């Protein structure tokens, strides 16, 4: 029986290799250069500026969702005192800390408020009863304040939970575990409320006449799915460099695969719940959002993207991830995770872009630059932090449970 083995892991298995630990500089440089180039090119005309801020908002939201998903992973595992996932938690802790640079990047939305949000134009609000009614919430001053507030709140939460865990690496103090588990409960409330509000602010208020109360949950469902998929890829990448052998095993990958499967279903459930109520009610002010996404079927319009999401974000991964063998085999799970990360990006694109390109999706240089820009900074910061500590929480009292974990 392996349940109570004492597992000894050599120290070099728990540290990033020297080659990989310098990669972060490359990513960070790519990020800064790409984002700078995008911003500079965007200043050319009104059109390019609008395109830059749209693409930026979409890609920022994409990587924000991954970071927020990692924060949720940390909180939920603390909250239910999970043993199996302890050796995976450090990765989530580190990548939730990318909320620190993301809090700064969030400020770059501020110069684009007028390009992105209709409610920020006083002349539009003036003749519009609905926008007037929403003005106490959707006004520039309060909006800027909220952006700063979300950034500080999430960066603080991520930093606090990661710092406690990292301190425990040295001190081995069990009290840290107890304290963080207790604090995970109120943190979860704050998390749920703030993510819902931020999703309303950043993405839903692009369409200020439209509303969907389930919007925050939809954003969250994609976030956690993306975060788990990203963790699968990161762990496989790290294992290829020779670390974490026998630490993260097929058992862990199978369970991450189960979470991916569960959240594929959850995403579809929430997405359909949002769609069905609006479709059934059939009120023009509600259906307009879907109408914009249901035109041009078979002609490269947004309806094609909607259909792609239905098949690629739900039906295909649903059957693919069902199999135990595909979840336990490295190469197939890597494929599933990469697939879902692409689908999640398309989902974000589908949420943000139809307003700017009503006829259909049109990808351009700006999308690439913004993806590389935010992504480079995101990955660069994450890898930099990853190189600074052990790759698993070596001081956690439940670590042995995770190391000897087996699926029943």
């Amino acid at each position, binding site marked *: *029986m*392996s*349940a109570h083995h004492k597992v000894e892991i050599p120290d070099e298995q728990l540290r990033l290799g020297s080659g990989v630990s310098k990669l972060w500089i490359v990513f960070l440089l790519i990020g800064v250069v790409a984002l700078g180039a995008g911003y500079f090119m965007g200043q050319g005309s009104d059109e390019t500026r609008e395109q830059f801020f749209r693409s930026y908002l979409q890609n920022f939201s994409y990587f924000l969702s991954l970071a927020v998903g990692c924060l949720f992973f940390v909180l939920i595992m603390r909250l239910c005192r999970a043993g199996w996932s302890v050796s995976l938690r450090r990765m989530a802790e580190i990548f939730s800390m990318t909320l620190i640079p993301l809090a700064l990047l969030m400020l770059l939305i501020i110069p684009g408020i007028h390009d992105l949000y209709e409610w920020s134009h006083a002349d539009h609000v003036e003749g519009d009863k609905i926008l007037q009614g929403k003005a106490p919430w959707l006004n520039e001053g309060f909006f800027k304040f909220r952006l700063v507030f979300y950034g500080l709140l999430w960066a603080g939460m991520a930093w606090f939970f990661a710092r406690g865990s990292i301190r425990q690496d040295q001190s081995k103090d069990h009290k840290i575990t107890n304290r963080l588990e207790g604090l995970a409960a109120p943190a979860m409330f704050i998390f749920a409320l703030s993510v819902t509000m931020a999703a309303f602010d950043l993405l839903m208020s692009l369409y200020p006449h439209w509303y969907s109360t389930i919007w925050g949950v939809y954003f969250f469902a994609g976030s956690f799915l993306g975060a788990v998929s990203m963790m699968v890829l990161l762990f496989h990448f790290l294992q290829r460099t020779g670390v974490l052998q026998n630490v993260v095993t097929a058992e862990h990958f199978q369970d991450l695969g189960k979470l991916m499967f569960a959240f594929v279903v959850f995403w579809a459930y929430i997405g*359909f719940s949002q*769609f*069905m109520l609006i*479709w*059934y009610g*059939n009120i023009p002010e509600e259906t307009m959002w879907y109408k914009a996404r249901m035109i041009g079927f078979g002609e490269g319009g947004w309806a094609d993207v909607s259909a792609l999401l239905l098949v690629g974000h739900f039906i295909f991964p649903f059957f693919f991830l*069902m199999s*135990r063998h595909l979840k336990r085999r490295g190469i197939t799970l890597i494929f599933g995770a990469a697939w879902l990360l692409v689908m999640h990006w398309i989902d974000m694109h589908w949420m943000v872009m139809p307003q700017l390109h009503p006829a259909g999706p049109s990808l351009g240089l700006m999308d690439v630059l913004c993806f590389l820009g935010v992504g480079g900074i995101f990955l660069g910061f994450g890898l930099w932090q990853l190189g600074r500590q052990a790759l698993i929480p070596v001081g956690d009292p439940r670590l042995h449970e995770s190391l000897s974990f*087996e699926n*029943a």
Partner: protein
Amino acid sequence: MAEQTKLWGVLAEFDNPLKLMKASEAVRDAGYTKWDTYTPYPVHGLEKAMGLKDSWLPFITLGAGITGTAVAILMQWWMNAVDYPINISGKPMWSLPANIPVAFELTVLFAALSTFGGMMFLNDLPKFYHPTFRSKAFKRVTTDRFFLAIEAADPRFDQARTEELLRSMHCTDVQSLED
């Protein structure tokens, strides 16, 4: 009626799961096929030690789930569009989005009930009699003893040699059971 005695198999008793695990590996490697283990709680890794193949249950669940989806959609199509067409809020008579909630529920219902039923069927349950019930010692299987039984119907079964194999695996007792 004259009492007929027919050997059913041999039953070995172990006082801890580790010994049972080792014994299972030995019995598996000796090539026995008609045998089983009995424990008070699920023992991780025992299925590997016994060399059990993957269960068919997931495929029963999948089949039932797909059946549930199909039944739900056909049922709604028949009821709403064919048998008793009625216009509801101007939607088409047969409209897929409106059918999804019922399809989802029937998928889950069929899959869940079939998983339960399939589990019972694959385990030969319910069962009111089993030869191991004849053993007094076997009563402790629900508290603190671990058992391994090899059936006489097994092609490799040979009472003396099978008992010898089990004894060599440090069991606390071996007894033969009648059917």
